[in-house]
């Protein structure tokens, strides 16, 4: 067997510090959806009030679309991508192929966060994990409540890394990158991105 030796990918690819965009805060908790007790629920919040935020998204072109995908599409269509101030993400259960109950669960996740931020159609929802299982809404609801009631939001490096971890499933490392750019005009701005994905990966999103 000539295959390469195992690489410590966490050490190679996970940053140790970072500068993040102004006006965003993030939080993550272990709601209990993941059986191993790891972080599995995250909320990203826009707290900047000087501008009505804009949002855009691309989605799977799989004919079977999960409830969170359909819910996000509805929200983006109804708002025209304006005024989206939160993203709520859970891992461990994909809330996919779960029918009308799954749609209700996805809408419920959105409503729970919208209620906390006193806004309607202001939250996007994502889920990842096992397909064909109902979401444990009792755990998710309690997790969202804890995040807001205990004000777990922060904008430091650790918090960003934790939310990146909270969306992971079988990932061997969280994927978090952040960069500050200077435009030709001299304006400085920051991009921060995170992703999860390890298997079932050959996206064709539109």
């Amino acid at each position, binding site marked *: 067997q000539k*295959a*390469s030796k195992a690489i410590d990918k966490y050490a190679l690819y996970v940053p140790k510090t970072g500068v993040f965009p102004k006006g965003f805060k993030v939080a993550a908790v272990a709601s209990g959806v993941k059986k191993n007790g790891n972080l599995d629920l995250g909320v990203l919040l826009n707290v900047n009030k000087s501008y009505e935020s*804009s949002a855009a*998204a691309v989605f799977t072109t799989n004919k079977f679309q999960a409830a*969170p995908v359909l819910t*996000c599409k509805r929200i983006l269509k109804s708002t025209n*991508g304006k005024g989206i101030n939160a993203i709520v993400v859970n891992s461990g259960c994909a809330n996919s192929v779960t029918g009308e109950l799954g749609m209700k669960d996805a809408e419920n996740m959105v409503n729970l966060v919208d209620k906390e931020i006193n806004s309607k159609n202001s939250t996007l929802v*994502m889920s990842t994990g096992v397909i064909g299982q109902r979401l444990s809404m009792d755990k998710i609801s309690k997790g969202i409540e804890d995040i807001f009631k205990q004000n777990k939001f922060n904008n430091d490096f650790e918090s960003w890394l934790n939310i990146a971890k909270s969306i992971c499933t079988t990932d061997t490392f969280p994927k978090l990158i952040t960069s500050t750019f200077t435009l030709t005009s001299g304006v400085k701005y920051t991009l921060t991105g995170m992703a999860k994905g390890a298997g079932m990966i050959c996206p064709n*999103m539109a």
Partner: protein
Amino acid sequence: TLLGYIVTDLPIQSQALQNMLTHSTDRSFNCISVDGDMSTNDTICMIANGAVEIPEITQKSSEFEEVKQQVTEFGQRLAKLVVRDGEGATKFVTVNVKNAYQFQDAKIIAESISNSMLVKCALYGQDANWGRILCAIGYAKLGNLRSLDTDKINVSFVATDDSQPHELKLVVNGVPQLNIDEERASEILALPDLEVSVDLGTGTEEAQFWTCDLSHEYVTINGDYRS
């Protein structure tokens, strides 16, 4: 499943933001393959909150193309991390298809090679099995053969470090190199990062895909995912 979000403190009009994200995704997340499977949940979303107080960027703004390019390169960095994970992957492989008659053909061929389980197994085993690469090119779902001329095709392994020769030619103008330097091939295939280069010689269009090898670990992880 692929999930991701990108946030920025620039003020960007929603249509302009959608244009940027779609452009970026078509050149980043839509050009990666770990196992050829597409999820029911794949989503990338982007939020611009305007905390940097400058006039809103629209598709007519002078900054639009500059930011779009930066978002595209940023998306590629993030997408490549997903491939580097690859559930037990040991190699990061860039499949570069160049000089195609049409861009779409270059992309289809790059994707076909990237999704081939046998190519991915050979990469894991460090086996310079160029026949599998040609096979994947041959069954790529092209609409016609304008980009593919069997007498013009060149296939190489390309090293990503400073070692020489940098490029190991496997097929030259459609002719397999039967006396391939197997020792050099093994050296290149032992690298954690490498490139498979396909020169179709029928045009000027180019496409890249990023893929990885298929390891025992992948089967271990996915053999009992629900439990």
